[in-house]
């Protein structure tokens, strides 16, 4: 990735993160959407530490390799927790919040166990391999959970504009990210493909910030308007 383009994308991502944290503090939503804020804060810290190690140790160093995979794993877990926090808010009226959280913990432990089992079978039992395996698997579980969450939003006729738009932004982010990963595998020779992931990473905090700034907690919308193709 070209250094200057990478730096511009990194800066946009950092500004997006700062915008989201600032807008949630201004709107008094920091604690209400604590896990989303936590994810964005962790993402900014990970970006800063990656950038620092990249500048001081270089792209090919083992330090960068470790920092990259461990922060990636941590971020995926944080994003998973953010998805669950949105799910428990959607299910809270059905008094299913605790049930959703218990399932999420089981899912997280199950995915970690599965990833460990996969890594343990290989001859190189590297801890970074475990981190990357866990990250990928949790990412997929997060993607499936977001789809289920979107189904629940439609089924339960969720009307809270902020919640709906945050779930939709997550869905957009997950699908685009999965697509860009696949595109890297299919067409890795095109340099532009390498920028897709980092660019998409900027989208999430910006869209969340936009939602917080544009809509109050009381804003509601008509659920029938949300279905992509009305039945």
């Amino acid at each position, binding site marked *: 990735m070209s250094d200057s383009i990478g730096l511009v994308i990194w800066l946009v991502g950092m500004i997006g993160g700062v915008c989201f944290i600032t807008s949630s503090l201004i709107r008094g939503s920091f604690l209400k959407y604590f896990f989303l804020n936590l994810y964005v804060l962790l993402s900014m810290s990970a970006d800063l530490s990656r950038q620092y190690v990249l500048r001081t140790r270089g792209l090919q160093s083992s330090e960068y390799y470790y920092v990259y995979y461990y922060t990636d794993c941590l971020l995926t877990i944080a994003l998973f927790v953010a998805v669950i926090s949105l799910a428990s808010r959607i299910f809270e009226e059905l008094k299913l919040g605790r049930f959703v959280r218990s399932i999420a913990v089981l899912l997280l432990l199950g995915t970690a166990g599965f990833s460990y089992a996969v890594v343990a079978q290989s001859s190189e039992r590297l801890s970074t391999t475990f981190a990357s395996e866990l990250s990928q698997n949790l990412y997929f579980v997060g993607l499936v959970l977001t789809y289920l969450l*979107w189904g629940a939003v439609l089924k339960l006729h969720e009307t809270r504009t902020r919640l709906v738009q945050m779930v939709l932004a997550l869905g957009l982010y997950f*699908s685009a990210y999965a697509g860009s990963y696949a595109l890297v595998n*299919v067409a890795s020779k095109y340099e532009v493909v390498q920028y897709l992931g980092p660019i998409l990473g900027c989208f999430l905090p910006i869209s969340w910030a936009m939602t917080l*700034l544009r809509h109050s907690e009381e804003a509601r919308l008509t659920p029938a308007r949300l279905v992509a193709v009305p039945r």
Partner: protein
Amino acid sequence: MMAAFILAFSVLTLLMFFVSYCRSLTASSLHTSITEDVRDVTGIQVRAVGRDYARVMQILQLCPDRPEDRSGLQIVGAYYSFLNLLDQGFARMFPAVRPWAEEERASCAHYAAVALGRRIALNREMLAQQVEL
């Protein structure tokens, strides 16, 4: 093979989420009616139709910018272009898509008209403040 399958699947779901996200943006403006001022300058009669969008956007660019509207208008603009593309390509093979696309373009025009109303109100406020000074 697997990567191609994931790519195709994620493009489909991306489209689904994109349409739903844009619909959630335009839906938030649906319960705000178009002001008399906007009706006067744009010529919108009862409700906005798809072709009003371009005219409303032209007038919007003449008004002072409201930063809080900017990103929403950009996304809705992208959605409008996507709908045009759908209408010109996909709808030729599947004509049933056309009325749906037109309905969606009308909601984009309504969204832009509501934003124009807010900008005109801001313009008036700024003018009133200048007169006071």
